[in-house]
Structures are given as structure tokens and as C-alpha cells.
């Protein structure tokens, strides 16, 4: 019974560590998907002149958070509302300046001619890439660290209790 309890403590601490690591993984996924999305936009706008809602619908999104943002953005479009911070309502992993950059990207989407829209997408993609590089570094630094720390902390508690 005692060993089982200690095992549970290690598991819980490890899980908390994993949760903290996931934050960095999710951020990485979001910005990777966002870059994929800009690439799809670029192709579909230039070659297919596809409508924005169709592009969003067809986009295979690997990030749950970006999916939520795209859903919120689609609702704003359909309801004729301007794109505001409400699209981030269920997304907790973004910093304020990142929200601002993403919001700027979406608020210009679909409002320009092909040439200027392509330029705007290209500029946004560069900004997303900069953030992605930071996210990659953060993930390298802290991604596994929290998981390891969690397990170590769990073991430490187990050791003290034992």
C-alpha cells in the first residue's frame, strides 16, 4: 500500500511537469500550424482564387488552439463583427504581443487584392517564423525540463516520506 501511494505521488508530480511542458509544445504546434496556414493561403489565393471560408474549411489543422482561433474568426466573419480578442477566448497559451500580431493578420485577411494580400501574408509569415524560432528555443529549454523536474520532485517527496 505504501509503495502504491509513493508511486501515485511520483505519477502526479510527473503529470504536473508534463502539463507544464505541454504549454511549450502547444505554442510550438500553434505557430507551426499558423505558418502552414499562411502557406496554404498563399497557394490557394494565387492559384485557385479560393474563397477564404473554403480555405479555412479545407485546412488540416494540427493545433487545437489554432483550430479554436479559426472557429472564432469564422464566427466573427459570418456575424459581420470585426475580428477582436474574443477569438482567443479559449486559447490561454499566447502572450499579449503575439495576440496582437495574430489579430492584425486576421483583420487584414480577405480585404486586399491578390498582390497586396500575398504581401500581407508573406509579412505575417515572417513574423510568425520569428515567434516560432523563440518557441522552438523555449521548448528545447523548458519542454523536457518541467517533465524531468516533476518526476524528480515526485521521487524526492517519495524519498522523504519513505
Amino acid at each position, binding site marked *: 500500500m505504501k509503495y502504491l501511494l509513493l508511486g501515485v505521488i511520483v505519477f502526479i508530480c510527473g503529470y504536473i511537469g508534463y502539463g507544464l511542458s505541454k504549454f511549450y509544445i502547444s505554442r510550438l504546434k500553434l505557430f507551426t500550424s499558423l505558418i502552414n496556414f499562411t502557406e496554404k493561403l498563399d497557394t490557394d*489565393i494565387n492559384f485557385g482564387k479560393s474563397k477564404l471560408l473554403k480555405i479555412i474549411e479545407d485546412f488540416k489543422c494540427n493545433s487545437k488552439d489554432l483550430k479554436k482561433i479559426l472557429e472564432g474568426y469564422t464566427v466573427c466573419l459570418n456575424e459581420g463583427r470585426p475580428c477582436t480578442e474574443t477569438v482567443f477566448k479559449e486559447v490561454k497559451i499566447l502572450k499579449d504581443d503575439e495576440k496582437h500580431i495574430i489579430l492584425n493578420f486576421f483583420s487584414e485577411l480577405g480585404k486586399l*487584392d491578390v498582390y497586396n*494580400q500575398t504581401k500581407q501574408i508573406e509579412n505575417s509569415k515572417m513574423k510568425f517564423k520569428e515567434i516560432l524560432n523563440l518557441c522552438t528555443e523555449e521548448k528545447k529549454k523548458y519542454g523536457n525540463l518541467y517533465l524531468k523536474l516533476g518526476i524528480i520532485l515526485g521521487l524526492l517527496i517519495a524519498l522523504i516520506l519513505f
Partner: protein
Amino acid sequence: MLSDVIGEKLYTIITTKFNFGYLNEIRIRVDKPIVVFVKGQAYYLGNNGLVTSEENAIIATKQMVEDIIFRASEFSVYSINEELKKGFIVLKGGERLGIAGTLVCEKGEIKTLNNFTSINIRIPHEIKNCSLDAFSFLVGEDGVKNTLIISPPGGGKTTFIRDFVNQLSIRNLSFNVLIIDERGEIAGDNGELNVGKFSDIIAFSDKKTGFMQGIRAMNPHIIVTDEIGGEEDIKAIKYAGNCGVKVIATIHAGSLEELKAKEGFEDLKNTFERYVLLSKRNGPGTIEGVYNENFSRLAIWR
């Protein structure tokens, strides 16, 4: 659809505060009062409907104009560049949205239109039987006569030819009718407007291409087209005549004198057998007279 494009507020006003059936046109200009044409008469649009004083009118903003175009393009302005170059978009309900702004040209060629400043929304209406009074003069035992419908802008020419084609269908006069719908106004963007059961539609094509391709591909008895003018259109009509195809066309002119003075009309004079003059006197589509090839009046309605 118009409701998706102009926004809830404007749509509610135009559908609840006066008879939408009489609405012909909405004009939205940046920083100017919104003007609507109801039964051919201009009014300002206020929050409570039609108003005559400018102070009570709704003032359009740049944002309003941009939002309307954004929504009309299905949130994809980049996808409507060809339409912007022509200066208009046709909505799903057949409404035509004319746009003014800054034309971007390069080496004499229009590249796009941006910095939008004005919108003109023309609302098509089906006026049942509006061509009926003239019908018997345009269809004889030998078939439909080459006919030119004449009226000033907004005079009901398109409504007239749409109803005329529908009347042929109602009477089961199974002529193959080919509609060359350059702006999508006769049959709508996707053929939503009623043009009878014997009609084929070539949409958004210039007349020259439409006539050539249509005659080759669809073997029509009659070609119906809107707003002729210019050398290419005259050539297309003559080509149809040489192929034995009858033509029902419309042209902008306020009177027969104005028509006769039009450049290029001399070339077409021997083509048409009937002229129908419309005006806005009792609302768009008022038939002023039907004339034969010698411009002798066959019928008059006063």
C-alpha cells in the same frame, strides 16, 4: 444575398420601413447620405425609412462601404479582381453592385480597383406581365421579330426582356432562347431569376464571344441580350442576323430621336423590325409605344 451583404441594420430598414418591392436602387457614397430610388423616385434613407431631409438621413462611412464589398466578395476581395476591373459584382439574388474607387492602371491596362468610395446596388424585380401589352406586336405568325427595347437607365429594359422570355415560355412557344447575360442581370448570378423553360444562358461573356459561341453550340432561334453599344456589339448582332437568329436587345436612350442620333445606329437600322420605348413615367417599365421598322407607332399607352 442582399441581406448578407448590406448588413442587418440597412436590410431591416429597407425591408420593414417601406415596400421593398418598389425599391430599384441603393446608392452608398462615403461621407454622404444614403440615397434610395423607390419607383424611380430618389429619397434619402433614414433610420425610420424614406426621408426627404438630409439631416435625418443615414450618412455612409468608408468602413460601411468597405464592409459591404468585403461581404459581397464572400470575405475574399482578392477573388473578385476580374469583377472589380469591370466595376461591378453580381450577388446571388441577381442584384448588381456597381463600385467606384481608384482604378489602378499599368501600361494602359486596368489592374484592379481599390480605395472604394461609392456603391450602387441595383435591385432586380420580376414584374409579372410587364411585357404583355407589347407582346402581340413582337411575336407574329412567322415567329419573334428582331426587337430593340429602348429606355433611359433604370427604365425597366432588363425586367421587360426577362418577362418577355418568360411569356414565350408560358405560351409554350418553344423557341430556343439564348440569353447572353453579360452582367448576370437578366437571369441572375446562377440563373435564380425566372427566364422560362426554353432558355439557355451564357453568363458574364462579352457579346462578341457569347454570340459566336452560343450560335455554334446552342443553335438558338432567338438571342436575348442587354445594353448594346459599340462596334463589337453591332458586329455580333449582324452575325446573328446572317445566321438567321432573331435578336431581342436593349439600348440606353430616352427617346427615338436620341436613339437615331447614336453612333453606329445607322448600321443597325435595317436589322430591327420593332422598337419598344419604355419610360419611368408611371414607374420603371412604363410602355410609351411600340414602333415598326419605319418608326411608325403601332400602339400607344397613355
